[in-house]
């Protein structure tokens, strides 16, 4: 099961457009699809269709990096960085060697 989750995570992170979406959600969480599309085209000159952005968001959602919530009639996308911990837990930074006086 862990392997499957990791596969989704690494697949999601492997694409530069998806990393840019995460950057923009880190700038401000809770964005509509319209705002995400606007940021990609106007701030990053990424000319991709709304449908393509939706597909990228679905991949990010499958990896747990993006969560969607309905608030009344609107749908917002939030950033969730918790899955990224799997990376440092799997390959932890070595503990600094204790200095012996």
């Amino acid at each position: 099961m862990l392997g499957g989750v990791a596969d989704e995570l690494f697949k999601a992170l492997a694409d530069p457009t998806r990393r840019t979406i995460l950057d923009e959600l880190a700038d401000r969480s809770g964005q509509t699809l319209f705002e995400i599309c606007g940021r990609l085209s106007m701030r990053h000159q990424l000319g991709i269709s709304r449908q393509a952005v939706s597909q990228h968001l679905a991949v990010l959602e499958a990896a747990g990096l993006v969560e969607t919530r309905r608030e009344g009639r609107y749908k917002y996308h939030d950033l969730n960085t918790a899955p990224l911990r799997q990376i440092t837990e799997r390959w932890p930074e070595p503990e600094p060697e204790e200095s012996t006086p």
Partner: protein
Amino acid sequence: MKIHLTSVFVDDQAKAERFYVDVLGFVKKHDVPVGGEDRWLTVVSPEEPGGTELLLEPAGHPAVKPYRDALVTDGIPIAQFAVADVRAEYERLAALGVHFTQEPVEMGPVVTAVFDDTCGNLIQIATQPE
């Protein structure tokens, strides 16, 4: 050819008149009964009384609801208005209780924000660069 009039569907024309005139600050231009409860109700900008009219059109047609619901879910505005300063307008409208689905953000050369007109639509405001 000129764009003389454009329209937005509104759930309730009386409510729409209050929002577009009292809250946004547009001026009523035409208000003519057209049968039943419906009115030919248009507003214009006080900055441009002879400019493009916005028709606040009854949303009775069955196609309107699914069309607007899908757009609103994705945060897509149905019209865009120009303002001198999006951030100042955001502060003014938010203080009046207007709900924004997108707070002001720099989108390259323009600053935009998106709010709910309480009549079924999202509206974008934008400040163009000088």
